[in-house]
């Protein structure tokens, strides 16, 4: 369960303080599929960053499974992300110097999980990329890269998966493929899936929608 307690974010742009996200209180239950929607600059990505502890809120706190992550140090946060959260990004963000297989294995190696190689193989199989395991990101198409990223997000079997415009950089066919994978994973593993998108069609599939406009829920 993720609880947001009056979380806000203000940055100083030039000399003027600029509030990207106004205080927001909400709870996301385990296994829920939440879509965060809104136009560009409405604060979607900021909210996602705060949920994952990638960024610190200006005020308020984020509590994941009873742990106040805003009180954690950088290293503890890293550990928490490694164990509980899987990420999928719009621009894939695979490590270019590693093969697909290695990219998937990295989170498990960091956590010291047993037998990461075998599990990486089965995850790649799950996203249908067994034959591309030893290719480098630059040798893969956008859709394939995103599937590797998805496999990587699932590496440590996290209870929460965060996806930032996962189809934003893909054509319709590949976008649909990724969405189908995400949904089937969400259903099969009962993961909490939080999706940032401005695609209304995708948002319609979610259990719940949080619509943002200029940093406020509408």
């Amino acid at each position, binding site marked *: 369960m993720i609880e947001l307690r009056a979380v806000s974010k203000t940055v100083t742009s030039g000399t003027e303080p600029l509030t990207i996200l106004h205080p927001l209180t909400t709870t996301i239950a385990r296994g829920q599929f939440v879509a965060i929607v809104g136009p560009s600059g409405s604060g979607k*990505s*900021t909210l*996602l*960053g705060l949920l*994952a502890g*990638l*960024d610190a809120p200006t005020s308020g706190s984020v509590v994941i499974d009873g742990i106040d992550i805003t009180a954690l140090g*950088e*290293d503890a946060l*890293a*550990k928490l*992300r*490694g*164990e509980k959260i899987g*990420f999928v*990004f719009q*621009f894939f*963000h*695979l*490590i*270019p*110097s*590693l093969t697909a297989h*290695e990219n998937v294995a*990295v*989170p498990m*190696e*960091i*956590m*010291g999980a047993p037998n990461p190689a075998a599990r990486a193989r089965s995850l790649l199989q799950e996203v249908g990329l067994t034959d591309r395991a030893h290719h480098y990101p630059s040798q893969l198409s956008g859709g394939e890269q995103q599937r590797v990223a998805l496999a*990587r997000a699932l*590496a*440590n079997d996290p209870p929460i998966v965060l996806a*930032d415009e996962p189809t934003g950089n893909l054509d319709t066919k590949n976008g649909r493929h990724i969405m189908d994978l995400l949904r089937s994973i969400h259903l099969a593993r009962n993961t909490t899936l939080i999706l940032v998108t401005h695609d209304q069609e995708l948002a319609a599939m979610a259990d719940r929608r949080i619509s943002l406009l200029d940093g406020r829920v509408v």
Partner: protein
Amino acid sequence: MFIIRMAARETRASWRRLLFFFICIAVGVAAIVAMRSVIQTVRQVFGTEARSLIAADVLISTNRDWTPEARSTIERRLQEFGATEQTETVETPTMVRPADDTREVARMSELRAVDKAFPLYGTLTLQGGQTYAHAMLRDRGVLVRPELLTALGVAVGDQITIGKAAFTIRGVITDEPGRRIGDFSLGPRVLIDTADLPATGLLTFGSRARHVLSVRVPDPQIDPLVQTLRSDFKEEFVNARSYRSSDDEVGRDFDRAENYLSMVGLIIVILGGIAVSSVTRVFVLQKMHSIAVLKCTGATSGQIMAIYMLQVMVLGLAGSILGVGLARLAIASIPYFVDTTSTSLLSDIHYGITLSAAAQGIGIGVLVSLLFSVVPLLRVRAVKPSLLLRDESAAPAGIDWTRIAALLLVTAGLVAVTAWQAASLKVGLIVCAGFGVLAIVLMLAGRLLVRAVSPLASTPSFPLRHAVLHLSRPGNQTRVILLAVGLGAFFIVGVRGLQSSLLQEFSTEMTADAPDMFLMDVQRGQVDGVRAFLSEPSRGAGAFRLIPVLRARITGVAGRDTQLETFEDVRARGSLAREYTVTYRDRLEANETISAGRLWQGSATDPEVSIEESIHDRFAINLGDTVRFDILGRKIEARVTSIRRVDWKDSRNGGFMFVFRPGVLDNAPQMFISPLKGPDGPDARARFQHDLVAQFPNVSVIDFHEILATIQDVMSKVTLAISVVGGLVLFSGALILIGAVAMTKFQRVYEAAVFKTLGANTRTIARMLLFEYGVLGLLAGTVGSLGAVALTWGVSRYALDIPWRLFWMEHVGGIVATAVLVAAIGVLSSLDVLRNKPLLTLRAE
């Protein structure tokens, strides 16, 4: 485990990009290992042969005749300490000519007269497998160095005249015990029997003969004997030393040489380190996304830094090992450069890499790589994982104490490494401080330049405008390139400047009318004869003067700032204790001016002396002080009444440290010297020397033409050696330059693609690059050249003691060459930027 695995994968992916870093380290390490190995090897040979190098356990020597008292003291002590064997030799420079008077040549040589017991240690080796025996010298036999045969055009079996006597050449010396490599010599060695020495008539009064007593004593008695003799002769001009002290001396020279040379290697490694630092910085910048991803998937900053640190260490180690390999190759090639037909010790040595040199090289390579990568790697901590959601550059918050602490630690580490290499904390600090100052100067210069050229940013020329903007763009390589290339230019231009300065120093002395020959040891009774000889027009000699000279030692000083009671006190002042050649006259030479006091007029019975400015500066001897001289046994206390400045550039007419007022020394035993303009042409000069020596056998002639040739030969070798080192530095600089260009290429490729899309053609972009690197090279060259000006000034003034000259051509040439080199490398290593099709690049982004 994760760290090792990641480091291995990363190295696999990025070793090509880090190749430059790797080569820079390798070159520096190779320099250190090669230099240390060679010196250690040579030193070992010296160490094992120290006894045969001075050919005795103890050497007792004097530049004057033995006094009977001194001899009896020595004899008594030798018995006391159980000396088992001794041999006496007399060495003096003298002229040698063929006995056949139709051969009109004469050559300055170093005569050594030996007795039956010579040599105590080592063997005298002769050409053609002959074995040396003293009998070969008996009855006017002589052994000579091969150079003399060529110089005089004689062969074994011919007769040569030494002084007043004729000798038969019985063999050719290839190696002689008791002679050190690099000893300065006035001419080739000539060996005769002591018994024949009187016949030559060379041991007249005032000759420059050195008497040496070589002694063999039981080992434990060596040091006590030397100590006792030293205290016996505290107040006399007799020296005693053991082979050990000579070993120590040689050892100290070697230590100094080894440490000095390895400093040069270290400078190259540090340059490599600067490259490491810049490469690491750009590397981290390029890896920002990967670092963020790793952080997102749970890795801590510490783990990520460990990954890159491990990578740096592996590459540093590999580079160092490659460096040792390079050193091995360099050393293996030495025999091709050392003239193996020469008989010097250097050619007999089996060169190889010593273990300690290799270990030091590798240690330094790894250490420097680590030290220089720590600070840039700290940036890993600042990479925020939220970067993946939004491309933002986080503003650094406040003072980063960790970074400052790391900087301090790294500085301390560098000082430690330098001090270790120089074997002196002081030198380590000085070198590091020097480096720091140079780096700061280069950086300030860089900033100034960027500011100076910034008005160009509004020039209508598109390529020039953008070139200038590039110099100050974020993440620019201006500083690193300035530092690396500026240092290279500094070394090379500095060395070339010094070399020209030295060559000019000698050639100014060779102007048309200046004296180019020098007569020595003219006896008082010969003055009229020599004058008549030189005035005879058929001899072809030009202007000449005969100057009386006496040899004097300072045995005490009573002055305001300096109080030296005994000769021992004077000895403690280093070169003040050496033997000075003094003269007397009552006028200044053309190259002299009085800087304090007044020069006397006429003669007086009260001793007065005029000292040269450097004596005043170095030993704090002032006007009004009294200096006590020992002039061939006579004690003279002279008051300092003037201080002279001598223009040493024009010193042929007299560069005397001490000039006395006439009156006191006029009737003292004295010799005459004569600077003169010799005849033109080598044949005429040879005939002139021959005829002079035939008439006055004890007179020595120094022909500056011959000396100049020798000096030029030595200079060209020294210059080559320094140029090689400077070249290595420049090579590292070029590598760093290429590396820096390659590292920032990703930025450039993208920009070029955008420019092309916007309508810029390849030529415009090429011009842009050319301007950018040209300006950068110009600056690096300027800074290096300015540094070189300072270097030549300092070295000329303090180390070489020659007037400082500025060589515009060298400095301007250096600036231009650097600019061209940097521009060429910059454009060439960006060629693919020019060739890339823009669409491809933009798509990839």
